[in-house]
């Protein structure tokens, strides 16, 4: 097939795939008195979506900060130091990447309940502060860096923390970008655990709030539902349009190496 024919075929397929999304936007904009953003305003207040938004944002920032700091420390340690049982520990990290998290759903709920943390930011952030996948990514990246600077600093008497956060950390920018993209996206779209670990509307994150909206009084109210869906998708779509290359690269990291 020629390049042009392949492009035409792709365009057709993409159009078919985009149809449901276009339909969603159309439904959210079509009101009784023509095209308007009325549903958006109404659903924003009814949600309350401003609250969901703030919750999602707080959780995303805390979880991102936790992952950047904790995973850098762990990934660096796994890459650079010979630790007794280190291989086994790293195998543990790897094994938790792929395991289905549903196994701990019930016990984690009971644990949070006993600690009185259901319906708090603690429940939404603490278990997610260290994503093993990020440790894996950082470990792999650190292993590819030369050790000269670290050695020189060590000879100059710098402490290990200083070496990590002053010297190594700035060199980690590329992998930390991947970590940030992956962490923010996973967290922003996370549903199962926030759904189980919150009870009140005021603690819901965006996906949970949206799902609840679809079961409540608005369930037959298509315009409002789709407006809510567009609102919760908007931040990621906006980020995607700005950082497209980085995001696609980040989420398919390392594949073509």
């Amino acid at each position, binding site marked *: 097939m020629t390049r042009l024919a392949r492009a035409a075929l792709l365009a057709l397929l993409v159009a078919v795939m985009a149809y449901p999304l276009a339909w969603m936007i159309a439904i959210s904009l079509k009101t009784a008195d023509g095209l308007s953003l009325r549903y958006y305003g109404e659903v924003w207040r009814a949600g309350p979506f401003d609250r969901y938004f703030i919750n999602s944002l707080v959780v995303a920032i805390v979880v991102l900060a*936790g992952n950047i700091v904790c995973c850098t420390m762990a990934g660096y340690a796994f890459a*650079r130091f010979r630790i007794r049982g280190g291989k086994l520990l790293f195998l543990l990290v790897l094994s938790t990447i792929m395991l289905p998290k549903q196994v701990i759903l019930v*016990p984690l*709920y009971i644990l949070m309940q006993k600690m009185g943390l259901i319906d708090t930011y603690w429940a939404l952030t603490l278990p997610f502060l260290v994503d093993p996948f990020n440790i894996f990514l950082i470990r792999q990246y650190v292993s590819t860096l030369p050790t000269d600077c670290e050695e020189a600093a060590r000879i100059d008497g710098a402490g290990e923390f200083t070496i990590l956060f002053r010297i190594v950390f700035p060199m980690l920018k590329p992998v930390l970008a991947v970590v940030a993209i992956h962490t923010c996206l996973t967290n922003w779209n996370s549903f199962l655990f926030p759904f189980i670990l919150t009870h009140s509307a005021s603690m819901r994150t965006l996906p949970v709030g949206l799902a609840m909206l679809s079961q409540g009084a608005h369930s037959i109210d298509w315009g409002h*539902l789709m407006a809510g*869906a567009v609102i919760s998708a908007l931040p990621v779509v906006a980020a995607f349009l700005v950082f497209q290359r980085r*995001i696609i690269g980040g989420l398919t990291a390392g594949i073509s190496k």
Partner: protein
Amino acid sequence: MASRRFVPSPVAWFLLPWAAVYAAFFVFPFVFSFVLAFLDYNPLNVANTRLVGFDNFARLFKDPAFHGALRNTLVFVIGTVPVTTALALALASLMRGKIPLKGAFKAALFLPSILSVVVIALLFKLFYAPGGALNELLARFGIEGHGWLTDPRTALPAIMAMDVWAAIGYYAIVLDAARTSIPDSLYEAAELEGAGAWATFRHVTFPLLKPAIAFVLVINTIRSFQVFIEVLVMTQGGPLGSTNTLVMYLYDTAFRRLDYGYASVIAYAVFLLSGIFSIVAMRRLRPESAVEGARPL
């Protein structure tokens, strides 16, 4: 490596945050759920908690609802994963080389995979509804509408079709990224030999992409075994249990019927089923692997 030093004390501190979170929020619940599996534990009646041995496991084997959920989940996995992979492969093949608007196509294909599953499920719940876009579209061709999600025969296939829609873009991009490692000279050679599109695919693209395809199959299988949010939002497992999946049943058992002990056994069933595939995937995640880094969304 010569630069590696033998356990200086800060290393323990470096690993501490991970170890603490891991121990408290993974290892402990993991062990706890194993204990739960042997208990009759109802949170509303904790005083009556008792050890029931293997009763919960035995229930699994004669519980028709579990068998239905297992069957539906297997149908879902077997019905979506190969289709998604084949379509993703076809899309990736179309994207080969310098084609016009490639960046835009990639972005459009990738878009569904950054959206929350809740958004997608909600959208398709309305899309499939009696007055929804699908029936509207079919009506234009004179085909009678259908309650896709309310008919037990079509509800599961409808959710499966949605899953394929949502997943092919991501896997197409993954396979496209893997394909960039195939040298152009091979394609030029194939062209010189007069190979058609199919022959080129069969003898050049496919053999060289095999590791990436295997990886995509595995991560998609693991992800698909856990299908839940779509079902919760769209059908709640109905009609007549026709879309009840393992994790949906797990959720129902734990949080609606408050049967924590039995729910833990179901959780272990999911764990074992996708665990088999996890082990395969982990082997490919080894540091020297060429496909490191990709993970199911």
